[in-house]
């Protein structure tokens, strides 16, 4: 199967949020209890029951409204994915179609994926079971159950304006370049973290960070260290417990550093 991608063209998005609802519909995710916090945006954040969320941002110039930005927040499906690197149980993996898939049965609920994701996407939730508290990660699945059967993802299917498009990644990149040239925009996601499988077309005048997109997302060295050095080393040492402890220490340390930096 060929490598696929989703195009999000912010210049065509009108913020109707049909994608957000279609995601919940197809994936049978429950509505969350929310409140109006002085914004159209809701729920406030991604969660294990909200895998796609539209962000709204008012941009002003000289005190007047200049534009209203609508941005997609969901898994970027990186080629060089920190979550896949960091996942100790190999629950997260690269699907042959390019996106980041996961096997929830294997998830140990460690949270490293969330910790290392440069886009702050995966979310964990704990549920009480007979065996105690069980923690599991959830995120956008790229509608694997649809795309592997030749369907487009639910969000793409419902988009009224064509702001979301699903196709071969090569084709999506061409479309993104063409569109960017047409509207004097920029393409995001082509090369960062090895290339993402959600490609954005953004207005050139608007800083990608206003869209919540880091200028230069990186796979944290720690995640790489874990997968490429520590884990093989760990197997050699055979000290799985020790390894876990070492990892926990490093994650905790990373958290402290992030908090210090104000995230």
């Amino acid at each position, binding site marked *: 199967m060929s490598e696929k991608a989703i195009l999000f063209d912010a210049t065509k998005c009108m913020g109707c949020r049909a994608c957000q609802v279609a995601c919940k519909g197809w994936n049978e995710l429950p*509505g*969350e209890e929310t409140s*109006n916090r002085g914004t159209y945006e809701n729920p406030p954040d991604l969660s294990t029951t909200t895998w796609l969320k539209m962000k709204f941002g*008012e941009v002003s110039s000289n005190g007047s409204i200049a534009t209203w930005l609508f941005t997609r927040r969901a898994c970027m499906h990186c080629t060089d994915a920190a979550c896949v690197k960091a996942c100790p149980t190999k629950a997260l993996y690269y699907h042959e179609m390019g996106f980041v898939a996961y096997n929830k049965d294997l998830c140990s609920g460690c949270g490293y994926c969330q910790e290392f994701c440069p886009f702050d996407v995966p979310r964990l939730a704990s549920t009480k079971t007979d065996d105690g508290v069980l923690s599991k990660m959830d995120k956008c699945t790229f509608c694997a159950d649809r795309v592997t059967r030749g369907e487009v993802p639910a969000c793409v299917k419902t988009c009224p304006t064509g702001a979301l498009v699903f196709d071969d990644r090569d084709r999506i990149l061409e479309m993104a370049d063409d569109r960017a040239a047409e509207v004097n925009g920029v393409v995001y996601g082509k090369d960062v973290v090895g290339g993402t499988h959600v490609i954005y077309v953004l207005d050139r005048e608007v800083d990608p960070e206003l869209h919540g997109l880091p200028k230069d997302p990186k796979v944290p060295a720690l995640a790489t260290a874990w997968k490429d050095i520590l884990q093989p080393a760990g197997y050699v040492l055979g000290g799985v417990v020790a390894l876990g402890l070492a990892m926990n220490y490093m994650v905790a340390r990373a958290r402290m550093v992030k908090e210090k930096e104000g995230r």
Partner: protein
Amino acid sequence: MTNHWCDIANADVVLIIGSNAAENHPISFKWITEAQLRGAKVIHVDPRFTRTSAKADIWAPIRSGTDIAFIGGMINWVLDDMEAHPENYNMEYVNQYTNAQLVINNGIKLPVDLDGVFSGLDEDARSYDKTTWKYADTTNPVADLNSDYSVFKLLKRHYSRYDPDTVSGITGMPKDKFLEICRTYAASGQKGKSGTIMYAMGTTQHTYGTQNIRAYAILQLLLGNIGVAGGGINALRGESNVQGSTDMCLLWHILPGYLAVPHHLDTDLDTYVANHAPGTITPVGLAGDKSSNWWSNYKKYIASLVAAWYGVLSAPDPALMDTRFNYLPKVKKGENYSHMRLFEKMNDGIIKGLMCWGQNPAVGGPMAGFERKALEKLDWLVCVDLWETETAAFWKPENPSRSKPTSEIDTEVWLLPACASYEKEGTITNSGRWAQYRYKAVDPPGEAEDDLWIVDKLVQKLKELYKADPDAPNRDAIIKLSWTHGADVDKVNREINGLDSNGKLVANFTKLKDDGTTSSGNWLYCDMYTEEEGNRAKWRDPVDHHPHQIGLYSNWAWCWPLNRRIIYNRASVDLDGKAWDEDQPVIEWRGGTWIGDVPDGGWPPINVAPVGSKYLPFIMKPEGVARIWGYGRADGPLPEVYEPWESPLDANLMSGTKNDPTCFLGEDRGDPGSPTSYPYVAMTYRVTEEWQAGQMTRNLPWLVELMPEMFVEIGEDLAEAKGIGNGHRVKVKSARGEIAAVAVVTKRLNKLPGKVGGKDIYHVGIPWHWGYTGLSTGASANILTPHVGDANTAIPEFKTFLCDVEKA
């Protein structure tokens, strides 16, 4: 819509006014986006920067309720530009296809002469004698552009007052923005270019809402934008089937097919036709010399409707037809049965029973506190709905507007569970007039039944009761009602199309008879269901067979009239039948025949047809040309600026007449709130995540998650002045009541850039979806709205009234 959804893609300029298309008609943006991809400019005029504004090339803020000043200003700009650069406009269209050249009665006085009103006003009766508004020669009006009384001269004289400074001073829109819009939109006046106006309730829900639309019509006619691809006046209907329900007589004053509801003077069929069917008017001096006056077929349509309801005759029987015609209910002298009057009559104890079928006036009605109390006076109330609406639950303690405890309310209430659209089968008619068949997907839950099943049971029972009671009022109207279709949707579709005396489907409305020997439940739909082609509402051919592929998709569903996708399309060609727009022709005369869309009458083009048969293009108008000057309206032949019933100004800045002198005033309206007590301009609207009075969305967890609570939008500047923070709870008050909501403080609704009458104008935006039943509950915006409405239609003035807001 004169055009249809897909056709928006053909526009060179899209003017969205009185509409938040992106939020309330998201699918329209598929076509707007398509137009933008082809290079179209999108203009959004709205007090508030909405999701539509975010996608527009130009957003212009405007004071709510000042469309006529704004569009009047554009008309004035176009008239001036037309004089300077006639080559930039389609003057042949204006001169030959509109009444611009025709001469009006020289007794006419304009608002410029009479301080804001037209000649003929009876102030006490709040109505006009329209004699002086008519053509000088009422049957053979003369075309003479040089006459001081030609429509064109009167138009110029009237709108010369609407200069850019005056427009900016009334609307609060910056002058440079106004001029930018004039230049951008007027470019659609070039031959071969088109501009569309998309509007919705932001246009209609004013005391002069009809005149707002008239202003759009005049602008579009001056720019040659009616009948062409990518043009038109396009009403974005607020529900999927509003067009269908209007076609089928949702409104009190029309029968199916826009036939007048009979009134007390219509004593028999011929008198009714004489009173309502317009006589043919034949203009003199135009290239066209023949007016088809399609409404001259009025009698065929009313006779076929009566036959649909009381049986097709095998042979003509005028006496029997009169008897049957007189079964129809008639409007009593001086009465008006529009929404507000009905509630006044309930409140007065005159109307004792109410059926609310998919309607929720306890949330959606104006001055809802009053209307909720009126429900308490009813003997019985039947609600047919998917959920227990606020109307069905008006007697419960949750209703904050009750005047007395539940135990003291004697109204007997039934709630009949109905099917949702996916649980039943039948047609809906969308904004583009496409009748589309929908099949049932799932069974309804519990005891829910489809509408037709409920009506059928009701009619069967009524017939039984009336039969048993020899003294029942207007008994024959019920017991003689022909009810052969029962609950069979297919049979209903056949009856709507129409049948002959042999039970065969009538091919189209040109075959209908005026003597009762054919039936048609709605003449406009006669052609939808034919013996040869079956029920065309079921057609699903996704290929556009138009020779130039202008997006007609004529074999997808069926469209009234006669599957004509763009109405008035004979105005899209010149006198020789050549399309103004060669790239996007709707129809063309080629090789002695019309190709493309179904033409508005198959006669040859004006220059090809023989003298005496040169048919003018606007076949639904008695004079065959479109009305720039429209003398049929209640409040004037041209739109004139008035203030909303509740205005932030003390006076009309254009004249000494503050309000539309003929607007609808509810008897129980109370006094308007003063700008001193209620200084801010309030407007109600919808958001994309919720729908109408809310029952279909406020009960769905996914949508409640998105828009969980009642809120109001307030500009950052006003919020700061009032000490209101984002997300704070606030109280909003009007002269009618008070509601609580969460404040969404935003720079999208800051005060208008320009002062109006020396004042800063602040708007407060209030979504109207919430009520006291369902998963998400909240205060209803309509507690605040007034019981006043449009002069022609009595639609309530939901869009502009006064309020105050403070921190709760």
